[in-house]
């Protein structure tokens, strides 16, 4: 979800472009959830 309503108009909210060193470290040190990714990528999706 990256949309919001401001002054009765829909606005697009972008992720932060500047991160602190601490935030970068948190992002980089987050472990990959292999179980979740394996479950998500092993399913066959019928994209048309």
């Amino acid at each position: 979800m990256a949309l919001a309503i401001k002054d009765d108009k829909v606005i697009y909210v972008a992720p932060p472009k500047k991160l602190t060193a601490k935030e970068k470290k948190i992002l980089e040190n987050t472990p990959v959830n292999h179980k979740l990714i394996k479950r998500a990528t092993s399913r066959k999706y019928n994209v048309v």
Partner: protein
Amino acid sequence: MLELKKYTSRNASYRLGIDVLSSIEFSEDLEQSQREKHFIEDICKRVQKPSTVLYQLKNNDDTLGLIALSVSSIGEFPSLQIDYLFINCSYRGKTLAILDNLKTSTYLIEFAIEVAKEIQEIAGLRYLVLLPDNDKLQNVYKHMGFSTLPKQNWLYIKL
């Protein structure tokens, strides 16, 4: 038959918003339903541009939900952003056998992970990111596997 109908700038017509809006049931709460309509209209306009892709999850003629994705970045890290996730009112909170006994929201999030992993192979994406609409949704997404960036409202899954 379960399918994810993909809309991009190449195949989205000017009628996309009308067609999508007519296929879904909104929240019973009037204010919330108006927000949902505004967001979906906006997303359908964004799909006319190359940056946003919309997927409509359908089971035969029933629309279960929508997910809109765009490539973005969080800090310097390339990411796939979930611009909007909508679940048809009558399917909210329900697990469905046709979705591998998942809720529609979980199925669509996991589909977004699949898309992100495909793009990762060619563009080096690092994260799937989203900004929850409210605090209640933040907890729902955390339960699905998203992590929180402290002091930011953005949530992410490392790919």
